């Protein structure tokens, strides 16, 4: 095996197409609901049609008698689930069928299992549920601070500083409930062999899923195997287990047959979480020169009655800008709505809408350019923790992004810029997102056939983890991508990180490097003293681009590693690697580690027909070293699409009488279409953050969405004069524009 052209190319920083791309575009990638087994049965849940009340009785006699129906489960016959305890993370901690209380519209109250999906669907509709003590639900979007009021960050004397500030902004901003709509529906295919479960799940965290399922199903962890080979994305909605997975597993165990349960699109608006709505009051105080002297953010987030996932709108507030006085407080308001969960950039994304809109309002009040205002408030250190940044290039994001966009040509007067008969609005916003590592273990095999196998119990949610892992191995070993087999998506593998918080890539780097080094050491130990290296000690050998050779010689004089293994009659040598998380790492805590960015947005406004479109976006991203600009750009472009939806379209509408998310389909829940996509230009600064890992790579799944919505809203203001403080910006808001 001679080093070929491919291996000579650097694997890191190369625009390598997804290694799983051909499988996906040819329909051969096996998604969870694609799994099928002999005798497989189909489960369809019955959802409550009230949002607050109790189940009085369930009559399943008609359903049970329908063709193909195997069993109808209710509280009376499903058996008990254990509570999750501290087994792992779950955002709907109430086990399904726990009691007769209905806490939200659509809550599962029964389950039908039948031979076909159609039979189960028909029978589920025939289950008659009567309710008692039904109360009109409270699904109001207006929030008041009702409980869990806390101060999340504080420095200086913010109220005194606000009172004496020469220029202030004091506004309240709201973001609506957004529902995750990945193209792949949530699904579980549960197989019980009499002793152990194999569960094919749509999860962003197979390891957490295993831990929680083992606890709630009452079996040892080693008797639960979770498989998630491919995900049609999740956006946070698939981070934690949801009740349907427990129902499918319990039915499979009871019936002794494999059971498939696919959550419908309608159910996905109630039963698998959503990004909750927020209400944020932001107060800024500044000197006339634009220097911030006070920043106060008081936010309220809505939760269900039964769980309390915090939408932490202050996620990035405390370190974003330099200000001596700052306070971030939070509070909760409960409503009769299903449990909420994380959505891409949780907390920071709605939080930045408020902060970055307020900064735009401050810039206007001060008559200072919005980019310049941010440059004047760039901090030297993380002022909330008093520690240095590991790698922060916000100023460069602002200046280079502005340059690429042509920001210098911006006329700040509202409605003043026109092109081809339409009004242009230019707006911008800055953004930040955390950069952390999770624990990760990796196994790496050098195989006797010349291939390399890398394995970790993580999963690829569509962001490119298969490709990233292959690139890391190619980088560490110098072997071509084509010879690297990536195995993930199975909880039987060494435990890997969850796919959330943009942490997978950064977490895997150290573990892969360690595993590669370990495998090479084994290989060199094997080679030393035998065959061509009969007279050599391991320390005199080296491994370069797949070949073992004398350190004193060249790779060309050496031997392919496959030959070494064949001669030693070894199938493989294995290296193991382990990354430690940053959350408990004293070294990591010496630095404030985040990604940064700046979005520049152009909207077009046609006053005659009240038509607003996003036409152009330039995004400058400081997310460490970019391992693969192709998949990296794809992440940012997708995030921009989502940001356009957040700014202009997405809004889960809880119907006031029944508490139902009534626009629970893709025609009525409006999201960005291709026709809505602006021209997107992504600029990666590409500064390695070596405090996070040796490659300096951070994750980039979320930073692209943070800040898009306020950049659009700020552009809308520039075009129309309408300040949108409540998302999404709607036509009815824009009709108030005086720009003609």
């Amino acid at each position, binding site marked *: 095996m001679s080093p070929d052209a491919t291996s000579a190319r650097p694997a890191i920083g190369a625009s390598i197409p997804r290694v799983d791309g051909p499988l996906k575009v040819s329909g051969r990638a096996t998604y969870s609901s694609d799994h099928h087994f002999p005798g497989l049965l189909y489960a369809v849940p019955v959802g409550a*049609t009230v949002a607050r009340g109790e189940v009085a009785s369930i009559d399943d006699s008609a359903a049970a008698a329908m063709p193909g129906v195997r069993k109808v489960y209710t509280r009376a016959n499903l058996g008990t689930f254990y509570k999750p305890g501290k087994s792992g993370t779950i955002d709907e901690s109430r086990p399904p069928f726990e009691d007769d209380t209905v806490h939200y519209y659509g809550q599962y109250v029964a389950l039908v299992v039948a031979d076909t999906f*159609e039979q189960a*669907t*028909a029978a589920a*509709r025939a289950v008659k549920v009567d309710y008692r003590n039904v109360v009109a639900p409270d699904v109001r979007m207006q929030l008041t601070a009702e409980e869990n009021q806390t101060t999340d960050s504080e420095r200086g004397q913010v109220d005194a500083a606000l009172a004496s500030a020469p220029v202030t902004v004091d506004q309240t901003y709201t973001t609506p409930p957004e529902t995750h709509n990945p193209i792949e529906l949530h699904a579980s295919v549960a197989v019980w062999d009499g002793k152990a479960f194999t569960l094919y799940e749509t999860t962003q965290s197979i390891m957490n899923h295993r831990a929680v399922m083992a606890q709630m199903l009452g079996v040892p962890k080693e008797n639960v195997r979770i498989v998630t080979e491919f995900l049609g994305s999740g956006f946070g909605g698939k981070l934690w287990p949801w009740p349907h997975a427990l129902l499918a597993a319990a039915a499979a165990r009871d019936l002794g047959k494999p059971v498939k349960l696919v959550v419908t699109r309608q159910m996905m608006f109630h039963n698998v979480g959503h990004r909750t709505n927020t209400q944020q009051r932001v107060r800024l105080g500044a000197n006339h020169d634009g220097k911030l002297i006070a920043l106060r953010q008081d936010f309220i987030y809505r939760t269900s009655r039964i769980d309390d996932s915090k939408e932490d709108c202050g996620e990035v507030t405390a370190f974003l800008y330099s200000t001596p006085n700052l306070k971030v407080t939070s509070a909760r308001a409960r409503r009769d709505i299903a449990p909420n969960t994380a959505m891409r950039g949780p907390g920071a994304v709605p939080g930045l809408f408020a902060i970055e809109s307020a900064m735009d309002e401050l810039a206007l009040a001060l008559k200072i350019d919005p980019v310049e205002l941010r440059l004047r408030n760039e901090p030297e250190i993380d002022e909330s923790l008093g520690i240095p940044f590991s790698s922060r290039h916000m100023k460069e994001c602002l200046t280079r992004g502005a340059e690429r966009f042509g920001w210098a040509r911006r006329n700040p007067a509202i409605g003043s810029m026109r092109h081809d008969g339409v009004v242009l609005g230019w707006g911008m916003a800055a953004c930040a997102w955390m950069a952390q590592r999770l624990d990760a273990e990796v196994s790496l095999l050098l195989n006797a056939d010349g291939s390399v196998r890398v394995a970790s119990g993580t999963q690829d949610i569509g962001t490119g983890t298969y490709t990233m892992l292959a690139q890391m191995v190619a980088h560490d070993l110098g072997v071509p991508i084509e010879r690297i087999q990536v195995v993930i998506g199975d909880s039987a593998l060494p435990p890997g990180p969850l796919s959330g918080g943009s942490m997978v890539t950064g977490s895997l780097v150290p573990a892969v490097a360690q595993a590669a080094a370990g495998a090479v050491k084994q290989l060199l130990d094997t080679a030393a003293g035998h065959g061509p290296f009969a007279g050599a000690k391991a320390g005199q050998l080296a491994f370069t681009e797949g070949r073992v050779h004398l350190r004193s010689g060249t790779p060309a004089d050496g031997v392919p590693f496959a030959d070494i293994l064949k001669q030693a009659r070894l199938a493989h040598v294995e290296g193991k690697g382990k990354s430690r998380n940053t959350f408990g790492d004293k070294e990591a805590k010496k630095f404030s580690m985040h990604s940064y960015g700046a979005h520049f947005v152009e909207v077009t406004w046609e006053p*005659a*027909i*009240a*038509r607003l*479109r996003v036409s152009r976006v330039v995004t400058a991203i400081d997310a460490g070293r970019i391992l693969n600009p192709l998949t990296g750009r794809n992440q940012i472009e997708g995030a921009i699409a989502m940001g356009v939806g957040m700014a*202009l*379209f997405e809004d889960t*509408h809880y*119907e*006031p*009488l*029944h508490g*139902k998310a*009534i*626009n629970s389909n893709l*025609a*009525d829940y*409006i999201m*960005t*279409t*291709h*026709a*809505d996509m602006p021209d997107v230009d992504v600029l990666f600064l590409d500064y390695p953050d070596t405090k996070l890992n040796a490659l300096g790579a951070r994750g980039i799944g979320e930073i692209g969405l943070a800040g898009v919505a306020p950049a659009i809203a700020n552009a809308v203001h520039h075009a129309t004069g309408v300040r949108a403080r409540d998302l999404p910006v*709607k*036509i*009815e808001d824009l*009709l108030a524009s005086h720009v003609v």
Partner: protein
Amino acid sequence: MQAFTFLRATDARQAIDAGARSPTAQQGASVRFVAGGTTLLDLMKLHVEMPQQVVDINHLPLDRIERTHDGGLKIGALARNSDVANHAEVQRDYAVLSQALLAGASAQLRNMATTGGNLLQRTRCMYFRDEHMPCNKRQPGSGCPAIGGANRTLAILGTSDHCIATNPSDQNVALAALEARIAIHGAQGERIVPIADFFLLPGDTPDRETVMQPGDLITHVLLPPPKAGTRSHYLKLRDRASYEFALASAAVVLGVDGGRIHHARVALGGVGTRPWRAPEAEQALLGRPATPASFAAAATAALRDAHAQSENGFKVELARRCLVHALTTVATA
């Protein structure tokens, strides 16, 4: 979905006979014809429509588009929306219809949806489409929670205390402005119904949407010869750029000579309980100069009787701008 029998009709008579066995051709019909299926199959999955028999009419020879002796156009009921939209003579003589069709749905849906099916397209009111909600249109007498509820997309013209559901079609708005006639073959023989008489106002019977009787089969749509010296245009306004029903739309056919308007046909979409022909606007235009003032007066006249709900008051202004812009576009083309 509830079980049903499936009949593939080989001639119109067979379909008509099957349809005539249903007690009604309106909401709750026990026999339904399926053509493209883009409305019916959705509603069956939602249990809004639960026919006992579905009659496939796709094999009937009703997909032709041809000139009539008087110079008009005869469009078969089974002509696909995409075929009609891309038909050279439709594009040349009835631009408003081509534009309306292309503004609707997605390419995939337009390839399936038919002219006759589009005429019978049902409302997108979210209460109508949810069997667990009250709805006077789906279940007469159960109430209308859209009044005071989620009504942002619903109608401001032609509403009643019983129903405010919008007719969602783009095609039908263009056909109203073109004064299309609908050829129906029924149990009692053939008849021609002007589009103005085809759709019913909801009144206190919102479950009745058209004049269709059991057994009635739409066979084709007749367009009158294009009026000399006229131009037509369709403008659709919505939240996003594609694949969404209209918040407001306007179909206009306008003839201007020497600066004066000699012919005007106006219909609005997205705002009415049926495709909303606006004769008041036409009267306001006829004989007037083709100026912004005339167009504004026409728009005001068209929306004079608008009745807004809790969330859709903006549609009055939006529809006004829509109509003014459509008229301006066609007058200055």
